[in-house]
């Protein structure tokens, strides 16, 4: 056991106590598991016919994988657009011109402060009245995801740029670069590299939020639960399997983010990464960092 702030390396008495606590903990967990098991049993949820579809390849190829692909498509398009949105508004918010800084700030604060579902509903139900044409569910989802995550990334980007060592800016000015050049050639590329882990972690949020598409009938992964259970009347099982798919995909993305953090943000860049991560944590607050 590594050193912890909370307790010392256990001695004989502490070890004995920990063993007792282990047994108690094990009993509690087992009790919880039994509760779930018996509830499932009472409602016939262990019936083999309900689980069998998930060991058949056709269930995966006709329902789950296409659903996953739709979810990843929405997340993929949205992350690219959100990145562009994020860079533009981060640079806008760092601008020396007040007429650029203020509107950028207002836009970012606005989209961070309202629920994603409100944005998606606006695009899906409201926009057709304004545009006089239907908005496909995919684009309603992408619209919401882009504006919300773009605003979060804008704040992360801004924090990342601000956390770069001052010497970078000073040296750039010293060799005669102009304001725009300093931002474009020196600061943004370095911040972008430091941002890579943050972007991938944000992808986890995006993938999870594509599930909101289910509410406006976008045929993503969660929507497949209904389709599967309509075929095999096994909603509980389908929800569990689909949940597991989400978890596996997101854990893999999280792992990738940690890997990138170690590889791409060593030394001086890591300060910018940490600042950007803090900005994401604080991003739902009224102000960053």
């Amino acid at each position: 056991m590594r050193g912890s702030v909370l307790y010392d390396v256990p001695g004989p008495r502490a070890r004995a106590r920990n063993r007792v606590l282990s047994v108690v903990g094990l009993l509690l967990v087992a009790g919880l598991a039994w509760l779930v098991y018996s509830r499932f049993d009472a409602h016939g949820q262990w019936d083999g016919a309900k689980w069998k579809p998930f060991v058949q390849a056709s269930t995966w190829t006709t329902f789950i994988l296409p659903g996953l692909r739709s979810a990843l498509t929405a997340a993929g398009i949205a992350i690219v657009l959100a990145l562009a949105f994020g860079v533009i508004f981060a640079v806008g918010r760092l601008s020396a011109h007040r007429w650029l800084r203020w509107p950028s700030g207002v836009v970012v604060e606005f989209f961070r402060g309202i629920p994603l579902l409100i944005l998606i509903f606006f695009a899906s139900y409201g926009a057709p009245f304004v545009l006089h044409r239907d908005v496909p569910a995919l684009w309603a989802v992408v619209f919401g995801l882009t504006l919300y995550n773009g605003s979060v990334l804008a704040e992360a980007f801004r924090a990342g740029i601000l956390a770069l060592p001052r010497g970078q800016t000073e040296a750039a000015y010293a060799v005669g670069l102009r304001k725009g050049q300093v931002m474009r050639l020196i600061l943004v590329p370095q911040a972008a590299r430091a941002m890579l882990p943050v972007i991938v972690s944000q992808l986890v949020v995006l993938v999870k939020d594509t599930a909101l598409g289910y509410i406006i009938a976008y045929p993503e992964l969660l929507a497949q639960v209904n389709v599967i259970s309509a075929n095999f009347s096994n909603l509980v099982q389908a929800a569990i399997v689909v949940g597991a798919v989400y978890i596996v995909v997101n854990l893999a993305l999280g792992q990738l983010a940690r890997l990138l953090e170690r590889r791409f943000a060593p030394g001086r860049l890591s300060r910018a990464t940490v600042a950007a991560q803090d900005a994401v944590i604080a991003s739902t607050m009224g102000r960053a960092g």
Partner: protein
Amino acid sequence: MQALLDNRDAVLSAFLLIIKLTAVSGLFALVIGTLLAAMRVSPVPVLRVFGTGYVNVFRNTPLTLVIFFCYFGLFTNLGVRISDDLNRNNYWLSVIGLSVYTASFVCEALRAGIQTIPVGQAEAARSIGLTFGQNLRLIILPQALRSVITPLASVLIALTKNATIAGTIGVAETASTMRDLINDNGDQVIAIFLGFALGFLVLTLPTGYFFGWLARKVAVLR
């Protein structure tokens, strides 16, 4: 604008429902999350594994799926019924979903808070002879609580916005109210959207500023 004013009772009760969902789920999430955090930092492996598993499962599952499962899984298929009144039943199923989901984020915020404390603080405390209880009460918790204000406030604000997902299982909250208003008043779409957006900004921005101010006021300088 007119549509919002004409339906102000529905709009206000929708926002009131969001506040209620946030407050009740936030309270449950705080309790469950604190227990989970205690498990994750405990010296007992079984509890640590359970805590880690819980957090990994709920942090990586979409909230929409969690709430979907609370309704169609727990209620429809597994017969978990909280109230005979359908509205109350849906409300409490949403509270369950929001609580168990948010608890994993509370747990991580608390755990991160404990980890920001340098080990030297506890070692110094032990070396001057403080007991475990004194160490926790006088040294660790005061520092940990200050550093978790920002992340916890962030979780609270996210919860406020997430509460809209309760609308998917028939709770008459803001998002579904907005959808109905839009469908009935196609000529006032922008005003309706801005009205609801403003309502959320009124809820989330002051909360954020208050906790941001509080966090800076009590911050530990290192």
